């Protein structure tokens, strides 16, 4: 056998490496061909929801002779992956993200990382609700202008799901639920007391209080509005947290969320709940009620008529303590075209087609009304949305479309997106429940950090 020297071995290894590299095509090349579209879409909760997107894109592909590479992935992954893509300049052509309006899109628009999609929005501008348009109109600090950087696709606002059998077990009926903010939520503490007196270990309130994901933030901010803190950020983007009314609303919100927890009316595990966990606790009948971002709790039981029509009650946001209606904080899920897209024109064409009211309606119906239309005409023209036999859908439509709504504050200033990413308000709740701060101290600490974040986003 021929003797192998060290030099010979090294030369051989290099040659083998080069051959493998050449053989597997590991040389720089374009990631995808022009004329194709790469689309990242947030996974739906139901198969039919994904299937609707897949079917519509396949149809669009045929009609436009443009191949669509569609990837459906979970919500947080879409955002992480898109951030990675934006950093290295390898982005898809179209992205639909459900929580992107809160955690990514406003800051991406500010940093000039998104294509201006005004032409797409303009194609249906008359159809979109005012809150949807405000949510999609964002500031680009580089180009020093407001414009549409996201196409409003679907909406959602806070709902309250209640177990009727547990109310009845406690000796109440659905009509006993009070209609105003404090009385409504306090009622479930009474329900818990009654159930406990019967030896049942059930919690009255299923408040999400974890400093992660979206539910705790959704709950805090709806309460904030209910207590008069809607002006925390002004439409011109100025932070208004020192306004006595806003400060008072924040303190009251923190008190009203943390006191029941400390008194044992909220499951102890709620400080670690992910978005799915209040739903699961509800289904396990560990809690009598839970506020949730959509009507997904009822929608998940649609195939069980007894549960859907008789046992689960959906209530919207209660009236304020003064008896006046409180606007719902409406989240608008956007669809965007990241800057660096290889096929911007086709991406725009695809979005223009998607937001045709008929297409959007077909897709949204498959979400089982978890998500609401961003166009009033859809609700007006399709009886599905106002079906009087459906006890949940109507309530959601009422809160998100018929009654007053307000946009999330990131559309006024992207700094508020950072506030949500850092989970500042849920952290303030934790400061009260875990570190024994007072609501005033926790509010002041939160306000301090929020001011620092706003300083980074000065026009």
């Amino acid at each position, binding site marked *: *056998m*021929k*003797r*192998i020297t*060290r030099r010979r*071995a090294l030369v051989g290894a290099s040659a083998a490496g080069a051959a493998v590299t050449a053989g*597997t*095509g*590991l*040389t*720089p*090349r*374009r*990631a995808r061909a022009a004329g194709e579209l790469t689309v*990242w879409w947030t*996974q739906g*909760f139901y*198969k039919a929801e*994904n299937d609707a997107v897949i079917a519509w894109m396949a149809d669009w592909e045929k009609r436009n002779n443009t191949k669509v*590479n569609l*990837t*459906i*992935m*979970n*919500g*947080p*992954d879409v955002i*992480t*992956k898109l951030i*990675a*893509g934006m*950093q*290295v*300049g*390898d982005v898809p052509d179209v992205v639909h993200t459900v929580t992107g309006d809160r955690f990514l899109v406003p800051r991406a628009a500010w940093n000039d990382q998104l294509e201006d999609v005004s032409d797409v929005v303009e194609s249906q501008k008359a159809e979109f609700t005012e809150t949807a348009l405000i949510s999609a109109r964002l500031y680009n600090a580089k180009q020093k202008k407001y414009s549409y950087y996201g196409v409003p696709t679907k909406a959602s606002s806070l709902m309250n799901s209640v177990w009727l059998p547990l109310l009845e077990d406690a000796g109440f009926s659905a009509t006993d639920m009070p209609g105003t903010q404090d009385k409504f939520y306090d009622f479930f503490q009474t329900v818990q007391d009654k159930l406990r007196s019967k030896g049942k*270990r059930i919690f009255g309130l299923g408040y999400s209080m974890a400093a992660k994901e979206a539910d705790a933030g959704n709950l805090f901010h709806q309460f904030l509005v209910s207590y008069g803190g809607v002006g925390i950020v002004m439409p011109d983007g100025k932070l208004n947290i020192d306004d006595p009314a806003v400060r008072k609303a924040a303190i009251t919100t923190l008190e009203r969320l943390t006191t029941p927890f400390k008194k044992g009316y909220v499951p102890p595990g709620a400080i670690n709940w*992910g*978005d*799915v966990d209040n*739903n*699961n*606790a509800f*289904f*396990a009948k*560990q809690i009598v009620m839970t506020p*949730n971002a*959509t009507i*997904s*709790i009822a929608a*998940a039981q649609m195939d069980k008529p007894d549960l859907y029509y008789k046992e689960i009650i959906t209530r919207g946001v209660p009236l304020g303590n003064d008896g006046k209606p409180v606007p719902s904080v409406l989240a608008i899920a956007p669809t965007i075209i990241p800057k660096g897209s290889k096929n911007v024109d086709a991406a725009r064409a695809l979005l223009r087609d998607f937001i045709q009211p008929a297409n959007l309606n077909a897709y949204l119906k498959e979400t089982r009304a*978890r998500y609401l239309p961003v166009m009033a005409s859809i609700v007006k023209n399709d009886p599905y949305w106002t079906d009087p036999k459906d006890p949940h859908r109507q309530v959601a439509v009422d809160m998100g479309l018929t009654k007053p709504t307000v946009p999330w504050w990131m559309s006024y200033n992207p700094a508020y997106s950072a506030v949500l990413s850092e989970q500042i308000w849920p952290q303030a709740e934790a400061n009260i429940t875990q570190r024994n701060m007072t609501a005033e101290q926790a509010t002041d600490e939160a306000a301090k950090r929020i001011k620092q974040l706003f300083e980074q986003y000065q026009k």
Partner: protein
Amino acid sequence: MTAQRRARVIDSIGVWLLSAVLLVWTLLPIYNIIRVSIQEKEEVLSTSVFPIAPSPHAFSVVFRQTFWLLETFWNQMGNSFFIGITVAFLVLAIGSLTSFTISRMRIRSGWMLTNAALLTYVIPMSFLAIPFYGIMGKYGLTNNPIAVIAVEVTFATPYAIFIFQQYGASIPFELDEAARIDGASPLQVFFRIYLPLMAPALVAIGTYALLLSWNEYLYAFLLLSGGKVITVPVTLGKFLVGDEAPWNYLMAAAIVYAIPPLLIYYGFRRKMHGGLTMGGVKG
């Protein structure tokens, strides 16, 4: 009872108590996974310690792929296998060849290579996610299993080299010298002397590399996209984003996914026992 005997009894009670706590601590999560996997969805969050109506339904759903998030489960299992086995093979090949070259062929300044390789662990794996994403994107490898394999091999190899070198130091040089005197080439020394005596370390590192890639989530979801190329952990991650997570299916899928590495580990465990070099220089 003498004081000495009493102390011994107290000691052993302490040991038993500690062992019991550790045992419960270790087994409770595993029990919980199994418990959830044999419950129906509605029961999953019940407070009962034992399943109320145990059923293999969730396993049947996983095996038959009848839940929409598990439609391509076996395909994804195959992807995990392909990536795991390839990573293990490459890490063993690169690690053993490198350690052999450095320590047995006594390459000049070889110690620098070992130290430099270990330095790569100074930077956490997650910090390199975006640079790796960029590199793979430039080479058109996103959505290609080769990208994940490359990443995993990169992270596992330095540790493999380090372990192989440490373990290799216990193999007497006299064996190499004896083989060379008998006319063996370096490759023959590598294959006939070095590798067989390194078997325990090879099994340990092979298992480590396999598990590293088997359980990988961050790079797998970042670098792979389509339903047909993703691995099982990425699919399992999809269960946790809906407002209604079917925990029983998730746990059943997790148990099925945990079986292959367990079988591999226990199948090769006997090989991991040390002492293979004992008496190697005798006779």
